[in-house]
C-alpha cells in the first residue's frame, strides 16, 4: 500500500518529468512512511517470536497449510500477488507488441514520409541485441542474478548447519550474503549503464563496433518514454545505401523507390508505447532488486554480528524465496524484452 501511495503521488507530482507543484509532495512522504513502517514491522518480527532467548516459528493451524510455518505461507501468498503484477505487465507488453506494427515493418512498407512521425513498436531489443557489446550489461545481469540465487541458498545451507563451529558459520553466512548484496548492486549498476551511462570501448575493439569508440546508453539513443520523434540509422535509406547494407530488395519501400514513388529518407517514429512498456516492466523488476538490497544490507550486517543460528535461519529462507522470485521474473524479462 505504501508503494502504491508513493507511486500515485509521484505520478501526480511529475508529468513527463516536469514538476507539477507541491500539493502532492506530502503524499509522497506518507507513502514512504508506510513503507518504512512496514519495514520496521518486518524487522521487529525478524528479531524473534520467542522470549528469554527461546526461538520458535508459529505454525498455521487450519487447512490447507496445517503445520506449515505461517511466515512461509505468507511469503508464498505475497509472491502470488507479485506474479499477478508481473503478468499484467507481460500481457500489456504482448498486447502492444502484437497489436502495433513494428518500426522495421512500417519502414519497409514505405508507408511514411520524412519529417512526419509514424506510430510503431520499436522493441528495446533492436538496440540491445544489436551487438555483443550492447547486450553485455543485460547478459552480465543474467549471470549475476543466477549466481546470487545460488549464493543465498548457500547462506541458508550454512545457517542451518548444526555441526560446524559458530565462527565458521558466521563467516560463511556473511560471505555468501555479502556476495549476494554485491551482485544485486552490480545488477543495478549495469542497469544504470544500460539505461543512462553507456560505456567506452578500448581502442582495439572499435573496429568491431563500426569504428565507434563508445556503446551508447538507451537514453543517448533517444529510446525514451516520451520519444515521439525517434530516429534510428537503420530506418534511414541514405545510411543503408552508404554503408553497403542497402534496402531489402523484396521490400515495398525498395520497389517504391525504384519506381520513383517514394523519395526515401530518414523515418521518424513515435515509440512512446514500446519504450514505456520496456521501462515500466524492467523498472518494476529493478525496484524489486532495490528492495532486495535493503533487505540484504540488514541481513548481511546481522550475519556479520553472528545473528543467525540454525533456529532462526528461516529468515534467510523467506528472503531467499523473494530473491529467487526476482530471478525467476528476470528469466522471462531477459529473453522477451532484451533479446527478442
Amino acid at each position, binding site marked *: 500500500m505504501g508503494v502504491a501511495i508513493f507511486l500515485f503521488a509521484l505520478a501526480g507530482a511529475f508529468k513527463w518529468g516536469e514538476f507539477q507543484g507541491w500539493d502532492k509532495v506530502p503524499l509522497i512522504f506518507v507513502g514512504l512512511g508506510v513503507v518504512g513502517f512496514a519495514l520496521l514491522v518486518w524487522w521487529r518480527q525478524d528479531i524473534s517470536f520467542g522470549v528469554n532467548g527461546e526461538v520458535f516459528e508459529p505454525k498455521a493451524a487450519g487447512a490447507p*497449510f496445517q503445520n506449515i510455518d505461517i511466515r512461509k505461507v505468507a511469503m*508464498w501468498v505475497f509472491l502470488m500477488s507479485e506474479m499477478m503484477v508481473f503478468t499484467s505487465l507481460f500481457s500489456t507488453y504482448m498486447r502492444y507488441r502484437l497489436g502495433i506494427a513494428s518500426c522495421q515493418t512500417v519502414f519497409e512498407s514505405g508507408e511514411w514520409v520524412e519529417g512526419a512521425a509514424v506510430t510503431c513498436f520499436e522493441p528495446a531489443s533492436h538496440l540491445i541485441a544489436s551487438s555483443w557489446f550492447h547486450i553485455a550489461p543485460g547478459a552480465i545481469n543474467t549471470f549475476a542474478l543466477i549466481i546470487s*540465487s545460488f549464493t543465498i541458498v548457500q547462506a541458508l545451507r550454512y545457517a*542451518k548447519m548444526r555441526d560446524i563451529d559458530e565462527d565458521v558459520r558466521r563467516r560463511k553466512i556473511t560471505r555468501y550474503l555479502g556476495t549476494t548484496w554485491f551482485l544485486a548492486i552490480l545488477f543495478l549498476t549495469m542497469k544504470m549503464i544500460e539505461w543512462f551511462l553507456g560505456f567506452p570501448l578500448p581502442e582495439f575493439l572499435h573496429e568491431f563496433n563500426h569504428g565507434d569508440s563508445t556503446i551508447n546508453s538507451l537514453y543517448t539513443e533517444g529510446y525514451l518514454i516520451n520519444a515521439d520523434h525517434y530516429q534510428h540509422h537503420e530506418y534511414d535509406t541514405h545510411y543503408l545505401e552508404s554503408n553497403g547494407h542497402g534496402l531489402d530488395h523484396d521490400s515495398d519501400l525498395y520497389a517504391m523507390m525504384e519506381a520513383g514513388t517514394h523519395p526515401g529518407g530518414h523515418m521518424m517514429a513515435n515509440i512512446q508505447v514500446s519504450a514505456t512498456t520496456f521501462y515500466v516492466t524492467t523498472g518494476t523488476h529493478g525496484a524489486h532488486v532495490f528492495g532486495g538490497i535493503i533487505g540484504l544490507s540488514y541481513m548481511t550486517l546481522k550475519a556479520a554480528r553472528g545473528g543467525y543460528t540454525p533456529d532462526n535461519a528461516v529468515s534467510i529462507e523467506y528472503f531467499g524465496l523473494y530473491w529467487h522470485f526476482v530471478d525467476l521474473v528476470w528469466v*522471462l524479462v531477459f529473453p522477451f524484452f532484451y533479446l527478442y
Partner: protein
Amino acid sequence: MAHYKIMGQDPYWMNFYGLMILTLMEVLAVGADLGPAANSLGTEEKVLTLWILTIIAIPKFIMIAAIFMHLYGDEDSGILTMTALFPAFFILIMVLFVGLTHPNAASGLPDWCRPGNYGL
C-alpha cells in the same frame, strides 16, 4: 533444505551449473546466425529465436522454482507448489484475453485512454 542428490551430487551445485549452461545457450542463440535454419523451417529468424528462448526459459524457470525455492523434495513442497500454481489460472485468463481483444485496440485507443489525457 534439500535431502536428495542429483546424479549423486549436491542439488544446489548441479542446479547452478545447469542454469549457467542454459543461460549461456540463451545468449549464444541470440548471437548465432539462425537465418538459414529459419528459412529451412519456413519462418523468420526472430520467430525461431523466440522459440529457442522460450524452450530454454521453461527448464530454467522450473529448476529455480523446484530446487532453489524448495518446491521439490521438502515435506511441504506439495501444498506450496499448488499455492504457487494457483495464480496460473488467472495468468492463463489474462494471456488468453490478450487474444480476445480487438485487433486495432492497441493502436486505436480512445483519447481518454492515452497518455496526457488525465482530465476526465
